[in-house]
């Protein structure tokens, strides 16, 4: 068995530092000791594939989860789930959640003074194809204020959750919209090393827009790739 089945991300090049003091909640919620490097055992190279999880038809269409259509700008969000070699991660379960067009989550903890939309719940799931492609229909989420610092606003974003093929590839992230002026002021987005930040921005995708119906954004998600297997004697 190869002890390094998945490549380890180079420190400081991809992921945020756990302690990113401009994002205040990280201060009391980040370990101070370095994580202990664990060789990849069966525990790390296996993981939930959730292949048996049955998705209802239309779970990937967040505009049709309720009686009527939600208010806001209808958009298509699509892309591929890939690994670092550009190979598709087939049949990956992709989960998303977001606030409504006014910037309010359908969540009891969200007390932002903005209207709830009875026709928008904000959660969706999709199963990627064998080529890694996934597609959601939703509405563009609004910006919303938060209490991190004076006049703090989150740029519009959609939360994404992916499992990938193994425990080691689990990823939760956020997708942002291109050219959002709030990105420059957001400590969560800016917790990511500068060179990696653009990877969290979807690309406006004119080719995938639906005439008379919806604009489209493309967001590819790249999970950890595998090391070349030298000799596998299992």
């Amino acid at each position: 068995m190869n002890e390094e089945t998945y490549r380890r991300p180079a420190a400081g090049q991809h992921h945020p530092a756990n302690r990113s003091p401009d994002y205040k909640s990280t201060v009391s919620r980040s370990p101070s000791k370095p994580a202990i490097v664990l060789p990849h055992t069966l525990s790390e190279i296996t993981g939930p594939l959730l292949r048996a999880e049955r998705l209802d038809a239309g779970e990937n269409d967040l505009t049709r989860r309720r009686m009527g259509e939600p208010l806001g700008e209808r958009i298509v969000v699509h892309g591929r789930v890939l690994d670092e070699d550009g190979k598709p991660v087939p049949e990956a379960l992709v989960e998303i959640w977001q606030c409504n067009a006014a910037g309010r989550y359908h969540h009891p903890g969200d007390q932002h003074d903005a209207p709830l939309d009875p026709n928008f719940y904000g959660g969706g799931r999709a199963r990627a194809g064998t080529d890694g492609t996934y597609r959601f229909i939703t509405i563009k989420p609004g910006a919303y204020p938060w209490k991190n610092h004076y006049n703090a606003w989150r740029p519009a974003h959609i939360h994404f959750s992916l499992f990938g093929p193994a425990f080691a590839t689990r990823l939760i992230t956020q997708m942002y919209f291109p050219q959002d002026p709030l990105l420059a002021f957001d400590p969560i987005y800016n917790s990511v090393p500068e060179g990696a930040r653009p990877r969290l921005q979807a690309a406006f995708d004119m080719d995938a827009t639906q005439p008379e119906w919806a604009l489209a954004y493309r967001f590819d998600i790249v999970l950890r790739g595998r090391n070349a297997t030298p000799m596998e004697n299992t």
Partner: protein
Amino acid sequence: MSRALTPSQTIGPFYFGTVVNAYRHDLAPAGVAGERIEIALTLHDADGAIVPDGLLEIWQANSHGRYNHPEDRRNLPLDAGFEGYGRASTDTRGCARFGTVKPGRVPWPGGGLQAAHVNVSVFARGVLNRLATRLYFDGDPALAEDPALNLVEPERRATLIAKRDATGVWRLPLYLGGPNETVFFDC
């Protein structure tokens, strides 16, 4: 063509939606082989305050020590209905509970067996990267020879070992920092 990794971001305080209807507290429906156990994980911040808005996931082998995954090609029984995956949010007391079976032992690369363990992922507002840890079982004679535990300084190993309470529940407090900081793994 090589592609650069998508960076991690916090789950934030308002995860729910999809993840709510995919919560799994009970991993082992009737008929699954093995010793039934209950696990209670309590999440704390560095100041010891409970974290009521965390999401905890577990991943484990079945009682025979087999992972329900194509990468585990060993000739050991798989249990129908047992995937080995659980997900629960912490409650107002910071606690997430799972009903499952005690996992069997799985091999260590290069030889030997690991002690029985459950793999744990921690997500929360203020947590920018998934934090990975493990839960072991107090009193297990295999703990002393577990190669992963032996990577940890002896005085910190207790942060990974659940203790059985008077009602039989396996309890493990998790600390995101502070004097009792949990050992997290780069996995």
